[in-house]
């Protein structure tokens, strides 16, 4: 047992740190460190910079052009990016659809789609959730009917994060109504510029259009865009869902944000108030405990063991911590969190802030973070999973 990273791991970390310091645009890092609004361009600029280095698909094996890092290296990469103020990588292409294409796509699909994902050129979206499906993903209703060498797709997806920017979308579609709901689902890649695709942004409680509804009205999709076999899509989707492991805890971001919380608390004069400070101290222990849990998983993965079935635990705890630090930041500013000035969350805004510039996004972030215990399988569903493991 050893808490310290190995010298090799340390030097890997330093290499990544130096590269990120040299390549992460300062304007983007400024926005991330201050929770200001990130544009499509910001996200894609960073993605392309990473893509050029070959690190956008940082979890990819070498065979597909990835760096072939192990679990610890991936974690260190994520940590260094988070620390430096890199925006979270939009996961739909490199983290979500790419592993499915690698595992179940044919060679032609791999050659056609992976390069655009790896370079950050093509913006992918996710088409899983449907109105009313919630955590019951198998209740897919969007139909894809095979007609010759095409599928005709009709239906609606929703909660499509950043779908307004999407160029391609990977969808679960129903190709058969026989058998259990899980059977009869296929995994289809759809060009969002196809006639019949309509995207409508959904405004969330913080005023931002972060997610979208996507309609398919007789959309023609070449049959060659089907991944794997027809009616086997559920298997591929589950593969994808199981792919995310430790990153789901988002502990690296939590560390960065905990430091930001301390800065805000100092600026607002509550860091020396024992009552408020204690709340930060509790969160600090929560973050350390979460990080230890993440490190345990990484250690197990590195040595090929599986010490702990923890994806659900990490999701629950990570999301609770995200909500808590955003809540404490808002409470630190107190009354000065209350003004809602939409433009004040734009970098370089020249208007007069109420209180201080750092106050402007705090309530919005808190509101927005309520999603974290709902999405990606609600925390209630995650507790079902944990209980199943423990109780049978």
């Amino acid at each position, binding site marked *: 047992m050893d808490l310290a990273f190995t010298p090799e791991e340390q030097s890997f970390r330093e290499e990544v740190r130096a590269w990120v310091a040299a390549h992460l645009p300062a304007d983007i890092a400024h926005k991330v460190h201050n929770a200001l609004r990130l544009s499509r361009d910001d996200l894609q600029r960073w993605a392309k910079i990473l893509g050029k280095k070959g690190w956008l698909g940082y979890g990819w094996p070498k065979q597909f052009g990835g760096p072939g890092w192990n679990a610890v290296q991936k974690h260190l990469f994520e940590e260094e990016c988070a620390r430096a103020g890199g925006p979270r990588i939009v996961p739909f292409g490199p983290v979500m659809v790419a592993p499915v294409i690698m595992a179940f796509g044919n060679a032609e699909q791999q050659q056609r789609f992976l390069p655009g994902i790896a370079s950050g050129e093509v913006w992918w979206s996710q088409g899983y*959730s449907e109105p*009313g499906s*919630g*955590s*019951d993903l198998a209740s897919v209703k969007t139909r894809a009917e095979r007609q010759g060498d095409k599928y005709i797709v009709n239906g609606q997806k*929703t*909660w499509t994060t950043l779908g307004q920017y999407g160029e391609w979308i990977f969808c679960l579609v129903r190709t058969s109504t026989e058998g259990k709901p899980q059977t009869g689902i296929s995994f289809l890649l759809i060009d969002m510029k196809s006639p019949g695709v309509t995207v409508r942004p*959904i*405004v*969330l*409680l913080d*005023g931002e259009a972060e997610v979208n509804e996507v309609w398919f009205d007789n959309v023609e999709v070449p049959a060659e865009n089907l991944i794997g076999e027809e009616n086997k899509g559920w298997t591929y989707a589950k593969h994808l869902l199981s792919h995310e492991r430790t990153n789901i805890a988002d502990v690296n971001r939590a560390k960065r944000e905990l430091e930001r919380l301390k800065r805000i608390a100092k600026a*607002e*004069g*509550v860091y020396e108030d024992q*009552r*408020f400070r204690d*709340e930060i101290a509790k969160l600090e222990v929560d973050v350390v405990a979460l990080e230890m849990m993440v490190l345990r998983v990484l250690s197990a993965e590195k040595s090929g063991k599986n010490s702990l079935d923890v994806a659900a635990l990490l999701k629950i705890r990570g999301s609770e911590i995200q909500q808590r630090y955003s809540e404490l930041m*808002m*409470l630190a500013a*107190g*009354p*000065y*969190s*209350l*003004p*809602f*000035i*939409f433009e004040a969350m734009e970098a370089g805004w020249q208007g*007069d802030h*109420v*209180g201080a510039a750092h106050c402007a996004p705090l*309530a*919005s972030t*808190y*509101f*927005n973070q*309520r*999603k974290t*215990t*709902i*999405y990606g399988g*609600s*925390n*209630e569903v995650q*507790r079902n999973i944990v209980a199943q493991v423990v109780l049978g």
Partner: protein
Amino acid sequence: MDFNFSDDQEQLRDAVRKWVEKGYGFARRREIAATGGFSREAYSEITDLGLGGLYIPEADGGLGMGPVEGMVVMEELGRGIVLEPFGQTLVGSGILSAYAPEEVRAEWLPKIASGEALVVLAHQERAARYHLDMCQAQASATAGGFSLSAHKSIVPAGDHADAFLVPAQLDGRIALFLVARGAAGITTRGYATQDGARGAELTLADTPATLLTREGLAALEHAVDIGIAALCAEAVGVMDMTLAVTVEYMNTRKQFGVAIASFQALRHRVADMKMQLELARSMSYYASLQLNAPAGERRRAMARAKYQLGQSMRFVGQQAVQLHGGIGVTDEYIVSHYFKKLTQLEMTFGDTLHHLGEVSERMQETAGVFA
């Protein structure tokens, strides 16, 4: 010991509820929020119900009613998450009735009663957080009276209000002043607030002001306590509706083929929400019934009430969103608006940790409601 409402109080409740249900639907509220967060017309409709004079003595042309009536009205306005800051009218009219010299009463109270004038409290300063005794605004005597220099923040509907209650330092202690909107040297900068309503920064530069009382801290504490009691009642109204829409949603929404209301873990969450709502309602009664108690008792009661309400609001608001799932975080569906309102109320007049401190400091050997 009696918690029944009188027939008059029930009629008052019915009248306000009717207006909220018929006159202040979600669509109208959304429209007002989109156009700045304050509608003078809507505010006038409230005062047209006769409510402007609720806390104004009959001798001054008001209704001479008390905290229980204030509670009834605020609870109903809360149910409609009404954007117009009627709680401020209770504060403004209550404080002017209690502290203002005769000529000020004669000038302002009838206008407040009729709805012609909206008078709000402008006390928040940047360095003060929730501490009422921290005040940097400066007052000085002038030939004709007094003038103020101050910067006050997050003044409710501050760019629509007709006058402000402003605490400022006078001769080394806090005094309370009235500043009329038209006075020289006033600047207001309005903005939306998180709950969809309106706030403003208020800057006074050598602005003529009328002295209400040199016992400004006591008056400010009194003002805030009127505000807390009103806020508690408003919050109960909001939570009532929050729980109601959550229950309705859970009985409608299906997952895995059954209504989500059938899942025991969620049912227990709802039981906990109901618990928090009833604790909050109990403490809202307590706040209103103690609002006329001597200052020490009154302050202790408000701290206890706001502490309970703060906890309840946070739990009920967060859980309502959670139980709604994805739709709970959309702007389109009403529950997120309840949630944001509850969040804002928690940070108004002192948040939960602040009032824990107040309770802790004011603790006595004895325990209970009558202690």
